[in-house]
C-alpha cells in the first residue's frame, strides 16, 4: 500500500500531502520525519536523483525536483522499486504540468492541476495511472485514449 505522498518546498514546508491508511495521530510524526530526512540528505542532490530509506517494513523514496522535494512512502508490495516507479510518474506529471522542474512559485501557480494529477496517479493507496498523456486527459474529464 502507498502510505503517503508528500511534496515540500526547499524550506521543508509541506505543500501537498496525501495519506492512505495512516491514522491522523501518526501523520504529524510522518511529516516531521520525512522533512527531517530530506533536510539531512537532499542537499546537493541532483534533480530526480532518487534516494531511498527504509524503516522496519516501510520504504521511502524521495527526490528533489526543481524547488520542491517529493517523498513517497509505501509498504508490503510497494517496496523501493515500486516506489521508484511511483515517484517517476509523479515527477513526469509535474514536469508535464509545469513545463520544467518547477520553482516554488510555479508549483503554487499550478497547484490545482497538480492536485488533480496526484488524484489520478494514486487512488486509495494504490498506483492507478502511470501514463502522463492518460493523466492529462483524465484531469480534463476526457477518456484517456482516442477511439
Amino acid at each position, binding site marked *: 500500500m502507498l502510505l503517503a505522498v508528500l511534496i*515540500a*518546498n*526547499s*524550506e521543508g*514546508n*509541506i*505543500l*501537498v*500531502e496525501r495519506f492512505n491508511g495512516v491514522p491522523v495521530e501518526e501523520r504529524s510524526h510522518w511529516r516531521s520525519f520525512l522533512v527531517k530526512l530530506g533536510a539531512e*540528505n537532499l542537499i546537493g542532490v541532483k534533480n530526480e*536523483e*532518487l*534516494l*531511498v*530509506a*527504509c524503516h*522496519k517494513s516501510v520504504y521511502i*523514496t524521495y527526490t528533489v525536483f526543481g*524547488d520542491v522535494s517529493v517523498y513517497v512512502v509505501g509498504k508490503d*508490495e510497494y*517496496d*523501493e*522499486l*515500486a*516506489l*521508484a*516507479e511511483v515517484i517517476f510518474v509523479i515527477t513526469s506529471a509535474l514536469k508535464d504540468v509545469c513545463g520544467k522542474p518547477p*520553482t*516554488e*512559485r510555479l508549483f*503554487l*501557480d499550478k*497547484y*490545482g492541476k497538480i*492536485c*488533480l494529477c496526484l*488524484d489520478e496517479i494514486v*487512488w*486509495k493507496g*494504490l*498506483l*492507478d*495511472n*502511470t501514463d502522463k498523456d*492518460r493523466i492529462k486527459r*483524465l*484531469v*480534463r*474529464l*476526457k*477518456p*484517456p*485514449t482516442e*477511439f
Partner: protein
Amino acid sequence: MAQPFVKKDDDREDDAEYSPFMGIEKGAVLQEARVFNDPQLDARRCSQVITKLLYLLNQGETFTKTEATEVFFAVTKLFQSRDTGLRRMVYLMIKEISTSADEVIIVTSSLMKDMNSRTDMPSWTKIPWLQVLPSVSGIHLLQTNPEIVKRWSNEVQEAVQSRAALVQFHALALLHQIRQNDRLAVSKLVTSMTKGSVRSPLAQCLLIRYTSQVIRESGVNTQPGDRPFYDYIEGCLRHKAEMVIFEAARAITEFSNVTARELTPAITVLQLFLSSSKPVLRFAAVRTLNKVAMTHPMAVTNCNIDMESLISDQNRSIATLAITTLLKTGNESSVDRLMKQITNFMSDIADEFKIVVVEAIRSLCLKFPLKYRSLMNFLSNILREEGGFEFKKAIVDAIVILIRDIPDAKESGLLHLCEFIEDCEFTYLSTQILHFLGNEGPKTSDPSKYIRYIYNRVILENATVRASAVSTLAKFGAMVDSLKPRIFILLRRCLFDNDDEVRDRATLYFNTLGGDGPVVETDESVKDFLFGSLDIPLANLETGLKNYIQDPSEEPFDVNSVSKEVKSQPLAEKKVPGRKPTGLGTLPAGPTSAADAYERLLSSIPEFASCGKLFKSSVPVELTEEETEYAVNVVKHIFDQHVVFQYNCTNTIPEQLLENVTVIVDASEAEEFSEVASKSLRSLPYDTPGQIFVAFEKPQGVPTVGKFSNMLRFTVKEVDTSTGEPEGRWSGRRVPT
C-alpha cells in the same frame, strides 16, 4: 504546519516575491466560496477558490462540520457548469472534504447524470481504463464484502487478459485475492498466467510472487529440476524491466533449501545491479545480498569487490548494508583492509546503523579469532567517540562476548573496558563493566593493574558506581590474597563515604574478609557468602520476607527457611518472531496442563473463585498488531455461568511505565452478558508481562453469542532509562484493541 511561502529566485524570476496563497486565510476563502452560488458561474474564479480550499486542507486547516457541509453543498452546485476542468476539480473537492451520509445521495445522482449525459461515448464496458476502476474498488471491497466481489470472477478473468498493462495488473491482484484461500485455484492461476503473455512489468512482479508462493506450498525440494516453475522465474532474470529481474532474483534467493547452483544466476544479476547508477537498484541489490549472506556467505563472495566500492556510497543505508554484508562474507585476509575502510565511514552514520555494524564485527571476530587485536582496537576506538547509550552498550556487550569466547583477548579487552569507564557517562554501563571486571580481573596474570581504574571510580563517580566499585575491590581482595593488604587500605577509606549503601558494603566486606586481622587466605564459605549467587527464587524470598513482617517473631529471619522450589510456569512462553513473549502464551504441548494451570490461576483470584469449575480456555488471540507499543492478547475462559477474559499485556517501550492499567469492555453488542467483576494491573513496567481480568455473567446452558470491543486504559509515567526510575510525569491514554 506550513505557512504560505515563496522563495525568491533571482535567476529565473524578475518579479517581486509572490505567492498565489500569500496571506491566505480560511474565513476569507469561505467568503469567496459564495461565488459558487452565482447563477452565472465564472469557471476560472470558481477553480481558483477550489484550489485555495485544497491548499488550506493540505496545510492542515480543519473545517468544522458546519463549514464542511456548507462548502460541500456549495461545491455540488458547480456540477451544472459546462466547464469540464471545473467539474473535475469538484470531484476532487468532494473527495477531500468530509461528507455525511445524507449528502452522498446528491453526489451519486449527480455523478450518474454526468455519466449518462455523454451520449457520444462508446459503451462504458469497452473502455479499457474503466476496467481498472472496479478492480481497484474490488480489492478494497473484498475486505468488507467478499461475497459480492467473488461473483465477479469471470469478468475479472477477462480483465486479466486485457492488453492494457495496468488493467492486467489490478485484475491479477484482485483475482489472486479472490482465490487466495484455495491453493489449487492459485496454482491453476499461476500455471495459466506463466504460459500466457503478461505485458505489464507490475503484473509480472505479482506473478513472480504468486509463483513463489506456489513453490513454497508445494513442499521442500532441493533438486533444481524438480522445483516447479523454476524455469519461469529463472527466465524472468532476462526480462527487459529491471523490477521484474530484481523480483525474480529475490524470489530465487528466498527459495527454501536453495542450492548454490540455483542461486548463481540470481547473484549474477544482483551483482550487476550493485554498479547501477540508480540508488534504488543498488539498495535493492545490496539488501537482498545481505540477506543471502546470512545463509550462503560463500555464494556472495564474488560480489565483494563491487560491494567495497559501495562503502563510499552517498546513501548511508546502502553503505551500511554493503559493510555488514562484507563483514559476513569477508575472509581473514581482507579483515584489516575492511577495518580501515569502516573507520572513516562510522562517523557518517547514525547510531542505529552503527549498532548493526558493531554486531557484524562481533560475529566476524568470533569467526576469525586470530584477528581479535585489530577488531578489538576498532571497537575500543569507536567506544571513545560520540554516541548514545544503545550504541555504547552494543560495543560493551560485543567486547564482553569476545573476552569470554576468545581467551587471548581477555587482557586487552579488560584494559579497553577499564579505559572506557574512566570517562563513561552511563551509570548502567559503568556498573556492568565493574561487575564484569570483578569476575574476570582476579583470574588474569596481573590483577593489580586494574585496581587503579576501579578505585578511581570510588573517588570520582556517583553513589551507584561507587557501590559497585567497592564490591569489585572486595572481589579482588577475596580472590587474590596478595592484594588483600592494599584492598583493605582502600576499603577502609570507603567506610567514610557519603552514601550509606557504599559504607554498608565497605563495612560488610572489610569485616567479613578479615580487614582487622592478619592477612589469610579467604575461606570458600566467605567467598560464597559475599559473591555467590542466591539460589533462592526472588519471588519466594519476597513472600518469605512479607510473611515474616506480617508475623514478626523473636527469631531472626532465616534465609534457609525460604523454599528454593521454583514455581513452574503454567505455560512455556511462546516466542513470536520480532516480539517479546506476553506472559502466558500458547502451550507447546499437553493441553491438560494448560487447563490445570489456568484453573489454578483463576481460583487463586478471589474475584473469580466463585465462578466454579473451568470448562474450557481458548488459545490466546492477538488483539494488537505486531510491533505495537502495547501488545495485548486475550484468553477466553468459559465457565458454566461466566466468561472471564484474561488480557495478557506487555509494555514494549523502555521509556514508559504504565500504571493503573485496566481494560474497558464495551458489551453493547453482547446484550445477554453482564459484567460482574474485573481485576486491573497496578503497574506494567517495560517488558514485564501482566494480566488483567474481566468477568461476565452469561445465561446458563444456552448457547450465547456476543461481540466485545476492548479499550486499554492506563496512565503513563516517563522512565529515565539510565537509572530505571520513573520521572513522575503523568499523562492518561486510551488505546483501542
